């Protein structure tokens, strides 16, 4: 204890300088670039402003009123929610299934598949989006090839040009890009489950289903929580892939809340309305965070 104080110069003045030097750089950058902008966004949301000159046109909550009656916002949010639901219902179970396969060391090729499936996650979202734009190209892409094999002579559909299909086409790319991350999280979790437990259960004659339900699933609580968190928060922030595959168009058919924020705020310079959208996104993430902490994390433990 006394040595502790010796090295740090005690809790007195000497250590204040040390603490300041150590903490100030990170704090200043973080506060200036993360906290202050979020507070500023909240302030902007109360004004009508184009980002130039003084911010004087106070609008109260009228930006929020406009937001709640804006059809595009409703559409965009419904897309974000669909992405989140699709991730939870399709992507995560799929990732879990694959993780169960590739975490088995007796399965030849497990390490190879594990490594390879994670690869799309390391690629940039923009490159991924651009690449899939080609795959979906009706004149050259893979879609054309599949189409002409299955239905010779028929015109291949322009999946990204049709308001009915564009969202689903992008959703498929999102799964392609991110399933490997979730699989990898699960593989790491599965490796922490003691093998003896599973072996003992097998010897006792427990079925695979039974082992999964009573040993593996409970042991995977933290990895599952983590991947649920990543996919829901990620779904509400999705931008790059959508932007690279047609900027949320045609006619907002693939719009997400962040592509709309970008269009309103930085393309049309409607900073007030953009600020209101930003506050809305922040509140959505905050509510999810609180819900997640209170309900999901606590109930299971």
């Amino acid at each position, binding site marked *: 204890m006394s040595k*502790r104080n*010796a*090295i*740090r*110069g005690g809790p007195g003045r000497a250590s204040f300088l040390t*603490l300041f030097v*150590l*903490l100030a*750089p*990170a*704090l200043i*950058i*973080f*506060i*200036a*670039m*993360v*906290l202050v*902008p*979020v507070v500023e*966004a909240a302030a*902007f949301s109360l004004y009508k402003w184009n*980002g130039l000159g003084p911010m004087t046109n106070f609008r109260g909550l009228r930006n929020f009123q406009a937001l709640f009656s804006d059809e595009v916002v409703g559409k965009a949010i419904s897309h974000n929610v669909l992405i989140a639901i699709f991730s939870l219902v399709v992507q995560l179970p799929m990732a879990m*299934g*694959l993780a169960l*396969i590739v975490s088995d060391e007796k*399965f030849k*090729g497990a390490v190879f598949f594990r490594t*390879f499936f994670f*690869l799309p996650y*390391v690629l*940039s*979202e*923009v*490159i991924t989006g*651009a*690449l*899939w734009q*080609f795959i979906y190209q009706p004149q*050259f*892409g893979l879609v*054309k*090839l599949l189409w002409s094999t299955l239905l010779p002579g028929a015109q291949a559909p322009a999946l990204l040009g049709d308001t009915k299909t564009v969202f689903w086409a992008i959703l498929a790319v999102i799964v392609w890009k991110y399933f490997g*991350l979730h699989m*990898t*999280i699960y593989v*790491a979790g599965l490796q922490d489950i003691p093998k003896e437990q599973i072996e003992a259960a097998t010897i006792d004659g427990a079925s695979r289903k039974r082992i999964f339900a009573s040993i593996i699933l409970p042991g995977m609580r933290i*990895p599952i929580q983590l991947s649920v968190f990543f996919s829901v*928060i990620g779904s509400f*922030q999705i*931008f790059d892939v959508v932007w*690279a595959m047609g900027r949320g168009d045609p006619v907002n058919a693939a719009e997400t809340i962040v592509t709309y*924020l970008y269009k309103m*705020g*930085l393309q049309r310079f409607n900073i007030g309305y*953009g600020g209101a959208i930003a*506050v809305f*996104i922040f509140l959505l*993430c*905050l509510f999810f965070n609180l819900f997640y902490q209170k309900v999901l994390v606590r109930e299971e433990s």
Partner: protein
Amino acid sequence: MRSIKSGDRLMAVVRYCVCGAMFLIVAVPLYIAVMGGFKDMAQLQTDPMGLPSPLVAANYLDMLTGKTGSFWRQMGNSLIIAGGTIAILLVVATFAAYALARMRFKLSCLVYGIFQLGFFFPLAVAILPLYLQMRGLHLIDKYMGVILPQVAFQIPMQVMLLRGFIKAIPDELEEAAAIDGYGAFGFLLKIVVPLSTPILATVAILTLVASWNNFFTPLIVLNTATKFTLPMGVMDFMGQYAAGWNLILAFLTLAMVPAIVLYVLCQKYIVAGLTGGAIKG
């Protein structure tokens, strides 16, 4: 006994079918990009899947020699921005994590709590004010204008990872360092940093991947094509060569190579940083 065995065999077949199908789903688009880059437009149109014949190397060569696009320039920009982000982040995050892990002071919890707030604040929420702030600081179209926000948004995660690691360094080492006459900074530089190389490497590589692939921040800050990073370069290139899909695929392939090489070389750090750190930390 026999039924279990044949069940196992069936299981193995199912496993290989599932993995094989997923393998194709991941590999085919990548294969199409690499091969498409070696084709001319006519070949690409008639046979997107086949091997190129004849092989057109000009698409790649023109890009590598700078005749089409600005691949090297944009790769350089990406490297400068990633390098700057890593350098600044490693210093400020290690300093802060060290103070939070090994020093007792009244506001310790508050400071850590402030950093933790970052997990609640997505970048998207901050972009409008961030853009105006960068304009006010005259950092629009400057590398620093991309680097500083990237550092800021990495701080919460990396301080958390580093703090966990530095906390685990035994107290005896600190006492020994004190006897040898090292102060707080001496202990940090002579003992904590060398012991922390694995976690520092993890932080550096995770930041490299994040910065390399980041599109949103450069999109907001950079205007001039000569400053563009690779992801922005891809979008720009697609705008310029809209119908030249063979050229676009060649560019995409070149732009993917650095990330793939990095992944192959540093796989352990990337996977451990993203999963182990988060699960156990």
